């Protein structure tokens, strides 16, 4: 059983700076475990959207294989500030 804490722990292996932002929402329902994961980090500056997601997919490889669905938002710090209130 994957939890918000499990996911956060994995993400913090890479997104460990004080500036990094992580927000995880458990949206699980009838279909099974489902999470929305939003990350804001300067590590995403200049990185393509695809590559950003690959970075997170790799970190969460074990968790993703156990859950029903995951939605990722991989934002720069600026994007995070602008968009975090839209979710």
């Amino acid at each position: 059983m994957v939890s918000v804490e499990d996911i956060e722990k994995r993400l913090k292996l890479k997104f460990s700076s004080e500036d990094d932002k992580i927000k995880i929402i458990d949206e699980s329902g009838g279909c099974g475990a489902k999470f929305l994961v939003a990350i804001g980090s300067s590590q995403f500056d200049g990185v393509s959207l695809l590559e950003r997601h690959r970075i997170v997919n790799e970190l969460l490889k074990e968790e993703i294989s156990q859950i029903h669905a995951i939605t990722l938002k991989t934002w720069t710090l600026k994007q995070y500030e602008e968009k975090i209130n839209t979710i």
Partner: protein
Amino acid sequence: SKHVKSESYKKALEDVETQVAESPCILYMKGIPERPECGFSNTAVRILQAEGAVFTSYNVLKNNDMREAVKEFGDWPTIPQLYVKGQFIGGADILMGLYKSGELSKLLNEAGVVKKDE
């Protein structure tokens, strides 16, 4: 064991490689475009339709080997997955991001997989 590839799985990997190479624009999804069987596959289909994309689809629910093979092939852990001109473009989240930014429209048009307006 996950680490021992069955003959049918190897065949599936070859099939994915062939399909991706031969299809200008192909979406691996759950269900068919007329009846997607998960929210993310539905999102991917609607985006492609909104873009006027001409695409083929493969229903991974019909074949579990194919379902797993495409994940290995694309080095991407989830379904749906879009490939254009042999290139992996992304899953539902990526497609939504590219759609919103206008990059998907540009990409699809440059690949020549958009219906011509009449």
